[in-house]
Every structure is written in C-alpha cells, then in structure tokens.
C-alpha cells in the first residue's frame, strides 16, 4: 500500500506514456516520410500539409467535444458544405452594399448558421432521444441535399471582387505562419481551455463517462450534449471560413467523407469513442497523421494508384499498433 501511495503522490500529473501515443505515431509517420522522399521535408510541402490539415483539425476539435460527451456527429462533412454555401450566398448578397466587409458579415452569418445546425443535431439527439449515429446520419443527408439543391447540383462561386480581399485567410501568413494554422491553434487552445479548465468541460467528461452519475450530480446531460453539438457546429463554421478562399466555391462534393476523417483523427488522437475522455492535442496530431499519410501516398512512387487506399489503411492500422506496443 505504501508503495502504491508513494508512486501515486509522486507528482500532480505524471506524464503518461499512453497519452504520448498519437505524437509517437506522428513522429513515426514523419520519419517514414523523410525516408521515402527527400522533398517531403521541403518547406513548401510541410507548409502545404500543415495548412491543409487545418480543416479537419478544426472540425475535429469540435468532434472531440461531441465524442467525449458521449455523442457522435456524422453530419460534419455535409454541414461544412451547407454552411459554406450559405456563407457564399450571404457574402455575394451583401457585397454590393458592404464591399469587403461582406466577408466579415458573411463569416458572422456562417457562425450563426453553423451553431444552428449543431443545435438541430443536438436537439434531435437529446430531446428526440435518438441514437446520435442515426440522428446525424439523417441530418447528413439533409445538409448534403440542401447544398445540392442550393447549387442546382453545380457550384456556388463567390463573387470575383471578394476573392482577392478574402484570399489571405487561407493563403496568407502571419509572422511566417499560415493563417489557417494560426486559426487552428487558436481553436485548439480555446478548445483545450474549455475542456480542461472550465466547468463545462468537466461536465462534458462526466456526461460521457457516466450519464447517470452526471445526472445525480445536477449536471443536465441533455444541455451539455446539446452544447457540444453547438460547439461542433461553430467549429465547422470556422473551418468553412478558412475553406472558402481556397477554392472560392461550394459544391455538392465539398466536405465529402470528412466525417470519417474527423472521427478517425479524434480516435487516433486518443479520445475514446465511448466518451468520457478527451485529448484535444492528440486530435490535432491525428489530423496531421492523416494528412501526412495522404501526402506520402502521392510523394512515394511505390504504390499503384489503385492501391493507395489500401496502403493508407494499412499504415493507419500499423500506426495504431505501433503506439500500442510502444506503451
């Protein structure tokens, strides 16, 4: 007993090897990358990869809230397309009267719409008491259909005159750091703060860990979960804000299958799908791992184009195995 107590009281929070898993996996994947292709480490390539991973990372921070509070959101990809569409329409509508400020106003609209989409998901899950998997599969169809309908199956491009002023939000740098990366950092920092340092974060974990206990303790599980979905919606909107300047249009294929990438990033990052545990920084590592693997598939010459998906699958499984055995 004494031994146990001693080791236990050793430090406020020991570094746990298990928590390092995603970062080790990331390091492994990067190392493999360096061995495969020398251009992998080139500044542009690294900047490209990191910048690209911003979308999935930002959305995945939201997903970390949802999953750790005991939910799941399959609709994020379609929601992203829908929010992008609405934002572009709003910006185009406001441009004649507001000029460049239409971007800011449009972004505001996007945040509100994102939050509302999240609220819808949350209410269906909590008030309607429908399994999140089914509920968000339903809204996934709904959002996807809406963007298809809004675009008549084609695309919704942003006004030419807005393109230039908006461009820096994806392509710009601040002190040499790409803007989307800075945005991601802010989102992650805020996310980590909320999850680990606020009452709400505590209650999120409690709701995901054991909903009954949370309820007895006066935590409104329904409210906490709904709020997590709203946060997810906001994250989707933020991702949309820095996505638009990249290609300047919303199409029915925007954000397709991102939900799977997002959930994968979260799980690789160490957040358990059953809830009760959140690893925001791991989530970011997860998003990076996915993007690096995709990048390596193109950079390496060893894989037939047909087999890219197979190799990606194998690498993901190997990475997970690796960090299991390093433990």
């Amino acid at each position: 007993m004494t031994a146990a107590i001693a080791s236990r009281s050793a430090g406020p929070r020991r570094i746990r090897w298990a928590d390092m898993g995603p970062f080790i996996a990331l390091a492994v994947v990067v190392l493999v990358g360096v061995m495969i292709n020398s251009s992998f480490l080139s500044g542009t390539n690294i900047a490209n990869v990191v910048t690209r991973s911003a979308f999935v990372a930002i959305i995945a921070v939201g997903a970390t809230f949802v999953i750790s509070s005991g939910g799941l959101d399959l609709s994020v990809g379609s929601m992203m397309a829908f929010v992008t569409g609405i934002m572009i329409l709003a910006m185009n509508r406001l441009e004649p009267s507001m000029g460049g400020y239409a971007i800011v106003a449009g972004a505001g609209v996007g945040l509100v719409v994102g939050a509302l989409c999240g609220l819808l998901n949350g209410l269906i899950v909590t008030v309607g008491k429908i399994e999140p998997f089914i509920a968000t599969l339903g809204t996934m169809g709904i959002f996807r259909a809406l963007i298809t309908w809004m675009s008549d199956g084609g695309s919704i491009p942003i006004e030419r005159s807005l393109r230039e002023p908006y461009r820096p939000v994806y392509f710009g740098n601040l002190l040499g750091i790409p803007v989307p990366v800075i945005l991601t950092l802010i989102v992650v920092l805020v996310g980590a703060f909320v999850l680990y340092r606020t009452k709400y974060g505590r209650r999120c974990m409690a709701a995901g860990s054991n909903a009954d206990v949370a309820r007895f303790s006066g935590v409104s599980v329904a409210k906490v979960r709904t709020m997590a979905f709203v946060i997810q919606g906001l994250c989707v909107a933020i991702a949309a804000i820095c996505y638009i300047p990249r290609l300047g249009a919303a199409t029915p294929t925007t954000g397709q299958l991102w939900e799977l990438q997002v959930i994968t990033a979260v799980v690789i990052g160490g957040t358990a799908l059953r809830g009760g545990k959140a690893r925001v920084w791991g989530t970011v590592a997860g998003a990076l791992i996915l993007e690096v693997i995709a990048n390596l598939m193109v950079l390496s010459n060893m894989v037939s184009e047909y087999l890219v998906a197979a190799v990606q699958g194998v690498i993901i499984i190997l990475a997970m195995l690796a960090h299991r055995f390093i433990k």
Partner: protein
Amino acid sequence: ATGALAQEKRIIAVSIPAATHGWTGGVVYHAEQAEKEIEAAFPNIDVIVKTSPSATAQVSALEDLAAAQKLDALVILPFTSEELTGPVEQVKAAGTFIAVVDRGLTDPAIQDLYVAGDNLAVGANTAKWLAEKLGNEGKVVVLRGIPTVIDDERIQGFTEVIKGTNIEILDIQYANWNQDEAFTLMQDYLAKYPQIDAVWANDDDMLLGVLEAVKESGRTEIRYALGGNGMKDVIELVMAGDPVTPISTPYPPSMIKSAIYMVAGQFTGQAPMRGSFKLDAPLITPENAEQFYFPDSPF
C-alpha cells in the same frame, strides 16, 4: 381514335445518376429543364426524372418505375454498361421504348435510340492537342476521377495517344472528381516533381482545383492545365483566351436533354427516331467557345 390517343397520357421515365459532382449535377439540371419544358408544351406527356446514387440504386429505380406504371419510353444514362444491361432489357420486354445516353449497353440490340458520348475521344483529343503543342516532348501529370467506366475510358484514350509520343506521364492518381482533392493532389504533385510541363484533369471540376494550386505555388513552368467536359467556368477561361487553359473538350451534360426531346418527339406526332447518334468531342477553342456556353446551367 386519334383524338383519344392524343389525350392518353404518355409517360417518359428518365433515369440518371444523382448530382454528386459537377457533371452529374449538369445532367440533373438539364433533365429537369427538359421535364419542365416538355410538360409545359405537351400536356399529354409526363416526364418522370429519377436520380440514383449508385448502380444498384439505379437498377432498383428502374424496377420501381416499371412496376408503378406502364412506361412508354425510358431515357437512361447508365452508371455502368454491364450492370444495367440486364435490367434495361427487362424494361424493354414490357414494350417500352429505350433511349440510352452516354454509355451504351453491352447488348446494343436493346437500344432503340442511342445518344453516345465518347469518353475515349475526350481523352484522346486532349492528348493529341497536348502532344502537338508540346512538340511530343515533356512531362505531364494526370488527375483522374472516381474509379468508374467514364473515368477509365478517358484515361485509356489519353494514355494510348501519349504512348505514341515522347511525352512522359509522371503520375496518375485519383482525385474523385472533387475540386478539393484535386487541389490537394496538385499541391503534392508540385512538391514531388520539380518540372511539370502540363497537367490534365479529366474533368473541369478538378481543373479548377488544379489551377488554384498552381496559382498559389507560383510555379511558372506549367504551360498547360487542361480539363474536360466543358464546364461553364472553364469555358469562360477559354473564351477569355487563357494561355494555360486555351481549350476544353465538350462532354455536354445537355445530351440528356437532347435525348429526352428526341423521345418526346415521337409522342407529338413526329416519326420515332431510332438509331445511334454519336456526339464527338471536338475541341472547344476561343473561336467556337460561344456555342458551348450556357450561362444559366449550373455546370
């Protein structure tokens, strides 16, 4: 008797892929346009447009359409030839007039009317033009779509022509007819290959992503970035005489509309049209771009 016949409702079913990307979006748009116009003009014709997200779903849709009513005609853009041949044959067995668009069925005898696109030519014509401009020398990268027959044929047409030249195809990867994925893939191509003379994306949707990636990289050695399908935005580029994208290849989604009109014709007193109509894939150049430009189409 003729009067009674004229009053009788004629049903034309249209079965097409769901609008999952730009080109299929265009198909849906033109089909719905045709439905509206024809139903307005000829009250005794009922056009039913149905989209399906997969070959399986399309087969199901055919069964449902045929079970629910007697179809006078079916206009179909099949997902794949092999998979849809049998089911279409069954529809025909009930006496339905069959019009096939784009991809022919494996048994051509089933098709009363065939409006054929030529995906091989889309690839081949682009390749020929590119080979000529590059002087049979150079390095190109290729982006392909979703693994389906259309994609396969276009790539086949392209690579066969290129094989006869000294042009080297550095890489071919899937970008799933998705702007985003094309952008990402092009960024990676640029990182991987220090010298790229030309890019071919087998669809204009992807071309837009490619152009953005090239623009952002600041690389200037890329002389041509070409697509295919004749998307509105790309035709605008062609019309404006863009040096990097001076041509496109039409693969107009409006072919579905033409087919529906041809079929409708026979119910409005005209003689039934039968046989095969092959749309070729002429190059869209600044000179002729005007005639391929439909500003109202979503595609």
